[in-house]
């Protein structure tokens, strides 16, 4: 069943030592807060407040529009200043609610009320998760209540908590695991109560021995929960890799974890579930890592969602000098932006500032070294897919399983000829999928 690792993968410079031993600091916002209506996968939420309205901490300001969608919750009390398009990390302009903070943090009624999840029905638990606006906090942003409601809940054998945090530099999950492991285990227990046949697995990479020890102590009395130590390797925290390593079951791009009896949640998501269900506290904050060689004082901040990243940069004493590149998320799958004048969303785990842009290199001819094939965690042949993609040969691209690519970036990382393999493959993959949608419509 359980394994310690998967085939392929890479060992990039981790950079975690910059921030991992620094306790998380709470950072309260100074300026306005911006809440994009699309911080998740699925339909954007619909604003349910108007300009001039007074809102409270924990109040729903955007409502899920459809099944795969999520609520957006205000993290401060104050006045709605504007509802307008604002820049988000993907570079798009997204409808956002802008709130002028009154710094009083008046809370909605019932905020923080203790609840016993054992006395709640499954429906009530799922409803609480949905109302709290919880989505996958590892980065994907898939609505958690949907994940917790698979077609056949008796078929779920494993609830896997993802504490791998395999992206370099990021330590927000790690700090959470060290500082508030009880919340994570609490969240796991709540999720387990939804699936009567399920066992809980907490997967942690072996470069986090302190976290492993904490969890082993915490769950020692629960025969139903085990800590699974996985090898430190990127992309160990990828859903398909993690399910395989913990259960031996294999997923392809057409399957969801639930199809093989698994529910996978990030540690931060589990903690959010605990807060929503047991403490009646919706998702209004998250831990954000600010790191990279350009940052004066790399560390983790517990910030309110909606806070401007400029305030985080300031709190970390700014940059040593103008960085060449800034990245939101990890260096492997995160997004580069031309500005950090954007707000913290549910899924932005970090801001990284780099003095040198490693990716600013010139391509040279492929020497057929085979490294891309060796590191591909899905056993694809990236260089061939990239060539087919460049030639727009969609048919053979699909036949060679190009659509399976998870975009982990390992092939581009390792390529000695500096080819943009991941970039080309993802571009062609998106093009194929877009053409299919067009053909369907």
């Amino acid at each position, binding site marked *: 069943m359980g394994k310690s690792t998967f085939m392929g993968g890479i060992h990039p410079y981790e950079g975690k030592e910059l921030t991992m031993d620094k306790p998380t600091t709470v950072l309260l916002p100074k300026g306005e807060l911006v809440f994009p209506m699309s911080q998740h996968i699925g339909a954007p939420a619909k604003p349910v407040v108007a300009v001039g309205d007074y809102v409270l901490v924990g109040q729903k300001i955007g409502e899920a529009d459809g099944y795969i969608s999520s609520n957006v919750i205000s993290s401060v009390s104050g006045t709605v200043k504007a509802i307008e398009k604002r820049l988000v990390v993907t570079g798009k302009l997204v409808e956002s609610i802008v709130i002028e903070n009154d710094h009083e943090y008046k809370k909605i009624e019932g905020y923080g009320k203790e609840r016993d999840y054992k006395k709640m029905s499954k429906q009530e638990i799922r409803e609480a998760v949905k109302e709290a606006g919880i989505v996958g906090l590892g980065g994907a942003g898939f609505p958690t209540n949907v994940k917790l409601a698979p077609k056949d809940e008796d078929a779920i054998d494993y609830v896997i908590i993802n504490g791998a945090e395999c992206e370099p530099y990021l330590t927000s999950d790690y700090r959470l695991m060290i500082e508030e492991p009880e919340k994570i285990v609490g969240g796991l227990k709540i999720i387990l109560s939804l699936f009567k046949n399920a066992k809980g697995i907490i997967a942690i990479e072996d470069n986090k021995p302190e976290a492993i020890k904490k969890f082993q102590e915490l769950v020692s009395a629960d025969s139903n929960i085990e800590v699974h130590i996985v090898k430190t390797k990127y992309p160990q925290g990828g859903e398909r890799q993690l399910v395989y390593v913990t259960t031996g079951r294999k997923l392809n791009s057409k399957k969801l974890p639930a199809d093989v009896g698994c529910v996978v949640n990030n540690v931060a998501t589990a903690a959010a579930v605990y807060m929503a269900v047991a403490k009646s506290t919706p998702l209004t904050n998250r831990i954000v890592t600010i790191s990279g060689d350009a940052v004066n004082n790399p560390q983790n901040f517990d910030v309110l969602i909606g806070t401007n990243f400029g305030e985080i940069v300031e709190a970390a004493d700014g940059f040593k000098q103008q960085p060449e590149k800034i990245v939101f998320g990890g260096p492997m799958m995160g997004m*580069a*932006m031309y500005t950090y004048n954007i707000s913290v969303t549910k899924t932005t785990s970090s801001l990284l500032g780099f003095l040198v842009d490693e990716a*600013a290199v010139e391509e040279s001819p492929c020497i057929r070294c085979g490294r891309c*094939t060796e590191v591909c965690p899905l*056993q694809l042949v990236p260089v061939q897919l990239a060539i087919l993609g460049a030639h727009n040969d969609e048919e053979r691209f699909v036949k060679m399983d190009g659509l399976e690519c998870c975009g982990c970036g390992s092939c*581009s990382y*390792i390529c000695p000829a500096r080819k943009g393999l991941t970039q080309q493959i993802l571009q062609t993959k998106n093009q194929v999928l877009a053409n299919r949608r067009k053909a369907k419509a």
Partner: protein
Amino acid sequence: MNDLYHVTAAPHARSPITTRNIMQDVCIALIPASLFGIYNFGLRSLLVILTTILACTVTEYVYCRLMKMKVNPGDYSDVVTGLLLALNLPASIPLWMAVLGGVFAILIVKMLYGGLGQNFMNPALAARVFLIISFPAQMSNFVVEKIASPTTLDYINSGAVALDGVTGATPMAAVKAGETVNLLQLFVGNHGGTIGETSALALLIGAGYLLYRRVISLRIPLTYIVTVVVFALIFGGQGFDVNYLLGQVLGGGLILGAFYMATDYVTSPGSHKGQIIYGIFLGLLTGLFRVVGSGVEGVSYAIIIGNLVVPLIDKATRPVSFGKERAKVEK
């Protein structure tokens, strides 16, 4: 607009390994063998090495200029070709032939097929075989003027002699005849042959470096050498004779071919399975050429013929995508 930064698609991290430092590593790994060649065959070896390297780099530079391509980005691949070619030549070769070999390797085998990464044969080996076919006498004169040229093409079977020590038959020929040879001498490389192939010790030191740096893996060299030994054991007609079998491994350029030329990325299969098949295939060919053929250049021919089947091996051994195994079975 003072807060503008680079924007590119992920990933934003790159491994420190580049084509250039892979090629540099290969050059470094060949230093012990080159030095031993110079020690063993005299300073003329150095001259041959410099000549082929120069011929290769100049050819690539001129070709790029004439074709208005981006001029050699300094990736050292031409240096590797030149150095490998020199190590595959006898020290006594006329220099103009060495130049011809270098031009052939780069111009005909590499650049005309599209340059780096596109050649379907190892340029250095193809050039060596080209020279063997064109100038058999000079290419088999292994003994730097001191000893008369052997009469047959094959130094293994002829009588190419080391500068000091073993006289008469080469170690390989002695092995073939079932005589005892000084295995230590064979291992150290104090005998006749091309500049770089004689010293298994020097070659293995370099190979160890390449393995340590993960430039090459053991898959191709090991399967290749093991196959040669097994083939010799079964068909060699000497039974289990340690001397004979070790002679097969240490002689005839097998170590040089297996670790430095069969592992050439461009002309070997990409998948692990493919590499093992390729190694076995090379071993069978080499064994066949050595045991059945007249024994001329078993290793070189085996590898360039092997190069030709690489696309087929690649096609047959494409890895099965993760999570798609069952779909394959059901088909």
